[in-house]
């Protein structure tokens, strides 16, 4: 006799697929996120790969996970997991502390044998009791044996079948959330079109997983998740790194320039290089240089020659680029540097997230060397900021550092494909000077940029370089007073960028006395924490910065409306120091975290509540 399964209504749910690195969890997670996003959910996903390339099978260090948070108003991949798929004991062990109370754990019982339990570090035969999981809804599914059972008449070896058992998990999760499996079927048919046996095995296992939910309804809750009513249009999933790469593609198209990337591989920035290396179809020139110095140097050379020159890296690579960044400031050529931050100093935590390169971006050069610093705040707005970083660099003839981080780079969200008119054109500052009378340092009176004149233009031959130049003639000058004029000019040119960027906006209870401030990738967590607190009746406001140098023009005005400003960031207070430097009159409280992890909404809410309490 079948009992009806428990139906759970929720606004948002986080599912985590977790298994050995060979279990295909990343693919499973991506396929589920595509299915559920297409069904009308907001999504935010985050992968969690092992740090080692080939960690030993079955061990904690070999666990690979993929979290999909979906529903309505989803802004982060979620602090905690509501439904966990654990393909082996190591996957269970490494995730139990991140489970929401009363959540569901689906385990492949076939893999919970003595050997695997020991490898995962369990001391007894019963992980449920050992980890005190009695309060959770445990689904013991024989995933491996059912996968083998339904494919036993196929002429496939054991290994190929085991490789497909992730489809069981996917089928079961689709059933639990009432999501159709057509999309996955289509994917399997396409992917294995040349291997009919493997295709058949995957399709059958997917189906078996889906039906398994039906059969054992009693033990498996089924969910009804609120969908959103998104704007009309075309949508797809996009990760932060891919979004950055794509933003540059659009900028190149909108400026009519060739895109040139000079780069050297480094985690977690490499996907940008890989994505653009594949875009020969759009005419992108990608130069994999011998090091980060050559990478930025080649990009500067390309800009000088008339391309949109960009380079991408992570912290240690930004250190190597410092001197050349100074050259770009001095020579006043357009350039965008994307720094995908990771834990530092030195090699640090290559795969973990941090916001600790802010000071390096702002100050990490010799001399008075002002440049634009901006930061993306969601995986998909990496697209927008890569576009606007290019626009600023080209229109103001100034280098721009765009900060993202490991959390944004690897996370993904649904993204609406922009329509014609969603993004402005980019107007290159071509010279209106006459051939033969060209002066390289004549400036636009509004932006103070010099003209962009490239080799090949007859009558415009000129020399620029790293030495200080005379403010009038552009000739090399060692004159002290002239240098002072030039230092101020470069600073003023930077400041005027503020006339072309959007103002800072405030969310939450704008009339409150406490303002929470963040920058870059912490947006989703801060936004959600503030939204929840204001829903609970708290008086608190929130502003997130995307433009850091220069700051939005209304920054001072906004800060002065609040008695207390809480600055939250994943470092020891670099942005707080920047604000204190500019607006010393305010009272700042800091919330900092440096664990290689994003904030949790829970810890933020606790900290804010405590402060609201104390301020009463």
């Amino acid at each position, binding site marked *: 006799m079948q009992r009806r399964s428990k139906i759970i209504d929720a606004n948002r749910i986080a599912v985590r697929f977790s298994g050995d690195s060979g279990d295909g969890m990343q693919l499973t997670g991506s396929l589920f996120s595509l299915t559920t996003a297409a069904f009308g959910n907001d999504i935010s996903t985050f992968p969690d790969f092992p740090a080692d390339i080939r960690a030993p099978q079955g061990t904690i260090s070999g666990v690979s996970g993929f979290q999909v948070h979906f529903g309505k108003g989803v802004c982060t991949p979620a602090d905690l997991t509501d439904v966990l798929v654990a393909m082996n004991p190591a996957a269970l062990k490494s995730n139990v502390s991140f489970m929401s109370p009363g959540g569901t754990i689906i385990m492949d019982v076939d893999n919970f044998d003595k050997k695997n339990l020991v490898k995962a570090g369990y001391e007894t035969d019963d992980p449920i009791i050992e980890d005190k999981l009695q309060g959770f809804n445990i689904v013991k599914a024989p995933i491996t044996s059912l996968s083998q059972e339904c494919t036993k008449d196929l002429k496939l070896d054991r290994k190929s079948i085991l490789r497909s058992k992730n489809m069981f998990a996917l089928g079961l999760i689709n059933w639990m959330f009432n999501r159709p499996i057509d999309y996955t079927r289509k994917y399997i048919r396409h992917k294995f079109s040349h291997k009919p046996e493997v295709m058949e095995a995957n399709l059958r296992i997917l189906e078996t997983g889906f039906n398994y939910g039906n059969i054992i309804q009693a033990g498996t809750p089924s969910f009804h998740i609120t969908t959103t009513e998104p704007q009309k*249009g075309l949508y*797809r999933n996009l990760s932060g790194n891919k979004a950055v790469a794509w933003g540059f593609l659009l900028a190149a198209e909108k400026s009519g320039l060739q895109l040139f990337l000079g780069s050297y591989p480094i985690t977690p920035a490499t996907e940008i290089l890989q994505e653009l290396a594949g875009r020969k179809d*759009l005419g992108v020139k990608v130069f994999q240089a011998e090091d980060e110095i050559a990478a930025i*140097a080649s990009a*500067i050379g390309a800009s000088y020659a008339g*391309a949109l020159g960009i380079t991408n890296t992570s912290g240690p690579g930004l250190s190597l680029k410092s001197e050349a960044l100074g050259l770009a400031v001095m020579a006043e050529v357009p350039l965008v540097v994307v720094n995908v931050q990771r834990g530092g100093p030195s090699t640090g935590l290559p795969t973990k997230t941090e916001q600790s390169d802010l000071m390096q971006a702002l100050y990490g050069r010799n001399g008075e060397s002002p440049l634009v610093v901006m930061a993306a705040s969601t995986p998909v707005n990496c697209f927008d900021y890569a576009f606007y970083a290019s626009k600023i660099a080209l229109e103001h003839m100034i280098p721009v550092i765009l900060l993202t981080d490991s959390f944004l780079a690897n996370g993904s969200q649904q993204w609406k494909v*922009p329509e014609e008119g969603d993004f402005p054109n980019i107007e290159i500052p071509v010279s209106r000077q006459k051939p033969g009378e060209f002066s390289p340092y004549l400036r636009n009176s509004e932006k103070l940029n010099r003209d962009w004149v490239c080799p090949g233009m007859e009558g415009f031959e*000129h*020399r620029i370089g*790293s030495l200080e130049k005379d403010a009038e003639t552009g000739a090399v000058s060692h004159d002290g007073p002239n240098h002072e004029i030039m230092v101020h000019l470069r600073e003023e040119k930077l400041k005027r960028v503020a006339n072309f960027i959007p103002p800072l906006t405030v969310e939450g209870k704008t009339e409150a006395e406490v303002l929470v401030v963040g920058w870059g990738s912490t947006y989703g967590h801060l936004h959600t924490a503030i939204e929840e607190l204001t829903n609970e009746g708290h008086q608190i406001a929130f502003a997130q910065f995307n433009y850091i140098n220069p700051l939005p023009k209304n920054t001072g005005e906004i800060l002065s409306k609040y008695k207390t400003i809480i600055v939250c960031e994943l470092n020891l207070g670099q942005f707080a120091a920047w604000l204190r430097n500019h607006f010393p009159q305010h009272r700042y409280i800091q919330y900092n975290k440096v664990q290689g992890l994003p904030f949790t909404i829970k810890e933020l809410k606790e900290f804010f509540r405590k402060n609201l309490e104390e301020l009463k």
Partner: protein
Amino acid sequence: MNNPHTIIQKEEYKSSQNVRWCPGCGDHAILNSVQKAMAELNLKREEVVVVSGIGCSSRFTYYMNTFGFHTIHGRGSAIASGVKIANPNLKVWQITGDGDALAIGGNHFIHTIRRNIDLNIILFNNQIYGLTKGQFSPTSKRGFISKTSPFGTIEHPFRPGELAIGARGNFFARTIDRKLNLCTEVFKEAAMHSGTSIVEVLQNCVIYNDKTHEELTDKEEKHDRTIILKHGEPMIFGKNSDKGLVLDGMQLKVVKIGENGITKDHLLVHDAECQDSFLHLKLTNMEYPEFPVALGVIRKVKAPVYDQEVIHQIERVQSSSNIKTFRDLAVEGDVWEVE
């Protein structure tokens, strides 16, 4: 204004900046020869880009009435690479010193050569750091005494030609500042070669390393101490053109024509275009007094050129791709529509 038929005078490549090298510095002569070579090649000034790093030699850029980018120490070839890849129509010349190219810029130097990007790299080898006032460089002879090696250096110098060929270089030539005509000829050949051309110019720094190349420039003796290699011609040298080079087993040997039955026909004939670099290496590494020092174009070999390959690859991919615009890419693959 330039058109293909007008002949551009050497003077037109001179910028209005006063040349500020020390009087008697070899750099003056090299500047002249480069301008002469450009005039003889009738290069359009607007298509020429001179890129340099930092050093006395790197000031060159400011003296050329072409496009010029004086950059940072050692990074010239990386910047020049970006210029050339972005716009392969430009004629990109890199001016560099022994410190700029072989110390701080050593990594960029070898990788540029390995890629075979179409740059003309003129390496001013004065075996000293001139601009910083006289410290030994990676080409200073072992034992060389300088401000930073008061007791003599204890390290081996690089031989730029050996390094260039070791980095799989396809064009290497050597000349000397005092031989204006040879400089001009060699610069022209370098400019016409597609791929990375390295021209080592033995240059005199009158202030910090005067006469370092003197034994090769001595009026009386220079013909016995150098050999000018010409593609397709026998390797003859000497005041009386009576000496030559032969291969004895795996080694080069100096012989005298007329002695031991040696005739001109026994001498090696220079083949700069030979793919195999064995002899080229032997020739570049010849040092006085055992051997004459080789001048002229030592190696000049055809090979795929990076900046051209970039274009070919793009054209190949574009001809078979449906993605022509950003939107084509954005709507391809896993896309869903909300109506």
